[in-house]
C-alpha cells in the first residue's frame, strides 16, 4: 500500500439530525486501488459514502488527494475528481438522457465537440442510452436509469469513483458489463474505486481490499482475496 492514500478517512462520525450513524470510521483508498465496502442492511454504508462526498453532516477528517475535504461542498468535491453514483435513481427525471449525460461533465471544461465524443463512448458501453437519448430520464426502466447514473458519473472523469450498489436493478449481463467497464477503466486509466455492493462474489472479485461495516463501525479490514477465502469471515459477515 503506497504511503500517500488517495482518500484518507480518519475517525469519521456522521449523523442525521439526532441520529448518529457512523461512529469513528477510518478507511483509505490508495491511488489505483479498488476497495469494496460490505455490510448488512442498515450498517451505514450509504451513509459513509454520502459523508465522504459531502452529503451528510460529518466530523472527523477526510482527505482527498492531499486536500482536506471535511468541510468542502459536494460540488467542490466533485470538481476534485471524487465522484459518486448514488443509491437508487439519482438521475434528473425531468431532463432527457442526453442532458443527463451532459450534466455529468458539468464540473469540467470540455468543448462541445469533445463532450459529444465522450458521450458517444458511454453510449457504446450502454447502447440503450443511445436509443433513449431524447427520452426523459424519469421514464426509463429501473436498470436503464442505473446505467445512466453510472454513465453520467464516468463523464465527470473521476479519479476516485464511489459506487453505491451499482448492480441494483441491473440484469446479470449488464452487471457483468458494468464491472468489466470499471475494471477496464481501472486498468487503463488508473481509476480508483470505492464500491458498496451486495453481490459480494462479484465485488470481492474485482477488489484489492475490503472493509466490513457493522453498526457504523469498521469490523473487518483486509485484502479482498483473504476475506473471500476465509469461510469464517464470510459466514460471520457476509452470511454465506
Amino acid at each position: 500500500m503506497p504511503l500517500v492514500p488517495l482518500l484518507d478517512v480518519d475517525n469519521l462520525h456522521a449523523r442525521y439530525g439526532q441520529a448518529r450513524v457512523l461512529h469513528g470510521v477510518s478507511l483509505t483508498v490508495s491511488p489505483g486501488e479498488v476497495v469494496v465496502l460490505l455490510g448488512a442492511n442498515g450498517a451505514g454504508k450509504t451513509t459513509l459514502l454520502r459523508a465522504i462526498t459531502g452529503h451528510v453532516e460529518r466530523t472527523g477528517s477526510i482527505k482527498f488527494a492531499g486536500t482536506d475535504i471535511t468541510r468542502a461542498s459536494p460540488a467542490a468535491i466533485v470538481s476534485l475528481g471524487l465522484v459518486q453514483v448514488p443509491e437508487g435513481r439519482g438521475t434528473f427525471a425531468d431532463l432527457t438522457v442526453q442532458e443527463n449525460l451532459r450534466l455529468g461533465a458539468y464540473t469540467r471544461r470540455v468543448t462541445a465537440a469533445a463532450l459529444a465524443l465522450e458521450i458517444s463512448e458511454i453510449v457504446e458501453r450502454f447502447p440503450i442510452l443511445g436509443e433513449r437519448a431524447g427520452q426523459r430520464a424519469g421514464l426509463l426502466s429501473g436498470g436503464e436509469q442505473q446505467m445512466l447514473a453510472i454513465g453520467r458519473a464516468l463523464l465527470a472523469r473521476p479519479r476516485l469513483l464511489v459506487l453505491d450498489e451499482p448492480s441494483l436493478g441491473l440484469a446479470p449481463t449488464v452487471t457483468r458489463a458494468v464491472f468489466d467497464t470499471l475494471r477496464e477503466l481501472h486498468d487503463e486509466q488508473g481509476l480508483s474505486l470505492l464500491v458498496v455492493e451486495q453481490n459480494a462474489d462479484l465485488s470481492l472479485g474485482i477488489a484489492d481490499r475490503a472493509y466490513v461495516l457493522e453498526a457504523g463501525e469498521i469490523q473487518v479490514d483486509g485484502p479482498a482475496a483473504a476475506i473471500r477465502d476465509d469461510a469464517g469471515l464470510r459466514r460471520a459477515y457476509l452470511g454465506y
Partner: protein
Amino acid sequence: MLALQLLVDGVGKGAIYAALALAIVVAHRSTGLINFAQGEFATLSAMLTVALTGLGLGVWPALAVAAAASFAAGALIQVVIVRPAMRRDLVPVVIMIGLYVCANAIGQLTFGQNPRPLEGLFPAGGLVFGGIRVQWSLIGVILLQAVVITALTLFFVRTKIGLGFRAVATAPEASRVAGIPVERMHMIGWGIAAALGAVAGVSLTNLGVYVESHMMTTVLVYSLAAVTIGGFDSALGAIVGGAIMGVVESLVTGLVPGVSGDVGILVSLTIIVLILLSRPQGLFGRERVARV
C-alpha cells in the same frame, strides 16, 4: 375597429402581466420556487429607478443600475433568508409572504405614499393606422420582452449553466451529486429574477402605471395566472399567457354587453381553468415525469 383597438389595449395589458411573469418564471426555473414577493421586489426596483433618475441619471442608465442593485439584493436575500428555509415544503411559501410584507413596508417607508411617474424608456406618442392607436412605449416594451425571452431561452436551453439551472430546480440532490453548486445557482437565479423584476417594474411605468407602493399587488395575481397558463418553466409561455389574458379580458369586457371591466379577474379565472383542464401543465409547460 373598436375590437381592434381593444385588441391593442389587451396586448398592452398582457404586456404588463408578462413583465412580472418573466421574472417569476426565471425564479422558478432556477430554484423551483414561486416567489410571491417578486412583485414587491419589482416595485422596490422601480422605486430605486425613480430615485436614480431623481439624481440626474438618464432612465436607461438608471434602469441598468437598478437592475444590477436588484441582482445583488435578490442574491443576498436568497442566501440570508430563503436558503435556510428551503427544506420544508410550505415554509418557503410563508417566508416569501414575509418577504412580500417586508418589501412592501420598505417601499412605503422609503418612498412614501405619493405615486410618482417615471420618464419613458421610449418616445412618447404612438402610431395611428386606420384609427387604431398603438403607443411607441407598448411597441418598445414588447420588443424589450422579446429580447429578454430570446436571451433567456438561449441561456437556459443552449448553455451549460442554463442546463445546470434546470437541473438544480428539478432535482437538487442529483445536482449536488453531479457537482453543480446548488446553492450558488439558487443565489444567481434569484439575482437574475430580481434584475428582471427591475425591468418589469420599469416596463410597467412605460405602460401607464405609476410607481407607488402597491403598484404590483394585483399585477402579481394576474402575472401568476399568466405563468400558470403559459407553464411555469417557459419564458415564452409567460408572454403568451399574459397576452391571452390581457386580450381576452379586454375583448370580453369591451364587447360583451353587461360585462364590465371590474370583472376582468373572473374572465381570467375562466380562461385559466379552461386552459388547464385541457393542458394541466400549462400551454408551454412540460408535465413532470412520474412513473413507478
